[in-house]
């Protein structure tokens, strides 16, 4: 085990996998010489050279299309979109192509590619640069989606993503890059897809979360513990495959659940999760599942109002209290 940041864990995963597989290439805007807008690709150009780590024009749709073609041709491209917001320029290649090609061609090919995208709000980047688009990806079949909460998962999930032969959308939270944690040293350490983590065991309420929301949920659980409320926190880790079993079992046990998502509430993935809990635990739920979600507004710049638009420890805490209060 070594302590390192989420950023460095991602960097290490990229390095280890590039060393392991000569078919792996990395490209994206400013990933090589500039070493990435968030410095996740630091040192890769020096180690692997410009044949394998490449800067691209600002052409997002074609970045994804290039990766699709390269993967079809037998490479293992791991591309970066500078932030998830720019995925909106690439939805055609992501949704119309990447996610459909294997199926529409009758299984005759597969696309071993990863699309890394930093995202999330909270840095006063305003409406066009603060989006949480995980629901868009989760809604579309044909690709896997990982969104790590910890440095260990950052490394383990990214390595699994790279070795996966499905296209993987790999989301990274901009506010987690500097977060630190213990990471296994074993270069064969992989984190599984489709297996949620019970990151904190508890008895009274289940909190279902992912990525930065998991971090906030754990803090909320810590605060609530002082009031004698015991929360079980589930970190989804991957949104596709989705490990519904784990959070359903937990909710059945606790009888109460709060679902936390950073994305917009309307038609957000939290509705799907909450419904699954309601459906599976209809007889055992003591209160309706509560959703904590991003507000349905374009993100404002000003930090004093921006903070109101994103789930916070306080909003999770009060959702948990509400669920307890509403319990029959």
């Amino acid at each position, binding site marked *: 085990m070594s302590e390192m940041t989420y950023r460095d864990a991602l960097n290490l995963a990229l390095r280890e996998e590039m060393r392991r597989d000569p078919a792996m290439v990395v490209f994206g805007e400013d990933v090589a010489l500039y070493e990435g807008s968030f410095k996740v690709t630091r040192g890769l150009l020096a180690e692997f050279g410009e044949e394998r780590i490449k800067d691209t*024009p600002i052409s997002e749709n074609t970045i994804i299309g*290039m990766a*699709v*073609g390269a993967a079809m041709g037998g490479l293992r491209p791991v591309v970066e979109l500078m932030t998830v917001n720019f995925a909106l320029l690439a939805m055609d*290649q992501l949704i119309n192509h990447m996610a459909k090609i294997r199926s*529409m*061609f*009758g*299984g005759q090919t597969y696309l071993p590619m990863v699309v890394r995208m930093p995202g999330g709000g909270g840095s006063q980047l305003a409406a066009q640069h603060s989006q949480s688009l995980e629901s868009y990806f989760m809604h579309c079949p044909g690709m896997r989606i990982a969104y790590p909460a910890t440095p260990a998962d950052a490394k383990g999930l990214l390595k699994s993503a790279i070795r996966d032969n499905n296209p993987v959308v790999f989301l990274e939270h901009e506010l987690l890059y500097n977060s630190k944690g213990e990471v296994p040293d074993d270069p064969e350490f992989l984190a599984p897809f489709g297996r949620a983590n019970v990151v904190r065991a508890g008895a009274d309420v289940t909190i279902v979360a992912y990525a930065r929301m998991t971090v906030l949920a754990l803090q909320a659980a810590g605060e609530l513990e002082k009031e004698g409320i015991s929360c079980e926190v589930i970190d989804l880790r991957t949104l596709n495959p989705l490990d519904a079993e784990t959070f359903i079992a937990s909710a059945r046990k606790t009888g109460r659940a709060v679902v936390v998502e950073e994305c917009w509430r309307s038609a957000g993935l939290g509705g799907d999760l909450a419904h699954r809990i309601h459906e599976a635990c209809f007889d055992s739920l003591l209160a309706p599942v509560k959703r904590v979600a991003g507000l349905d507004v374009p993100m404002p710049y000003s930090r004093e109002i921006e903070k109101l638009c994103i789930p916070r420890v306080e909003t999770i805490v009060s959702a948990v209290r509400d669920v307890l209060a509403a319990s029959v």
Partner: protein
Amino acid sequence: METKLRAILSDHELVRLYEQMALSREFEEACAEQYTKGHITGFLHLYSGQEAVAVGATAALHKDDYILSAYREHAQAIVRGAEPKRVMAELFGKATGLCKGKGGSMHLFSPDLNFMGGYAIVGGQLPIACGLAFSAKYRQEDRITACFFGDGAVNQGTFHESLNWARLWELPVLFVCENNFYGIGTEVHRSSALPTVHKRTCGYDIPSEKVDGMDVIAVFKAVKYAVEKVRETGRPQFLEAITYRFRGHSMADPAKYRSAAEHEIWKARDPLPNYARRLLAEGLATEQELEAIRQRCGAIVQEAVTFAEASPWPGEQAVWEDIYV
């Protein structure tokens, strides 16, 4: 004076070009019939009139070269070697189809033949073609990628992004624009600021030529030259093939936006009879031989229809198959 055909290809190869065009034509006309009968559903875009492009180009490409196209790609696939019966079965939506009935008319695919797909999003195949070319270059394979698209595709962002990228990274791609003058009902000059399509590559420093897409030999020569240039320079080339579709955009389109006179002019340039005349004139085939070829093609297509009809539908389980690895 025109070069004699024998100076270009062997007798056998020359006749084969005719055979492939005839097979394509027979196939498309059979599709139209099967569509009318309700056996083929969805969108059906036929290639009749444009055969010289697919046939001439394919003949000039190596077996290892990748080919990608849009949704008007039956002929591209068949000329490349896809079995007509499996293509027809695909159009019928049968389990024996080239893509198990999942893709249909617009999404043929056969990696064994390096036929890397028909795509239905206008311009969608260009970035993918660049990616395939990059993979070949990265692995130092002697393999170029030929990417076909229509005149309507040249105003998509992907066209621009892909051409810039292909030249920047020196990717071995041959871009072929099949200019049949219409994107559905919109004539090129009503969608393109510069309607001379091949001139649009000036902004990317990509060499570009125009070729008569109704003349299979002209296409063959132009593609052969361009492909050699790609191999020699490691850089992209661009070709505009001037052609015409004899039918509407799809089976749903009566093509009222074109005049009968225009249609007649192009009918007179039909690549099949024109090439047949040349073969006859140069003594490469007799009228009987050509008739026999057409008969044979007709029979192959008939067989394909019979096969497709007799084939089973995909089972219910197919719904969940072939999505994830």
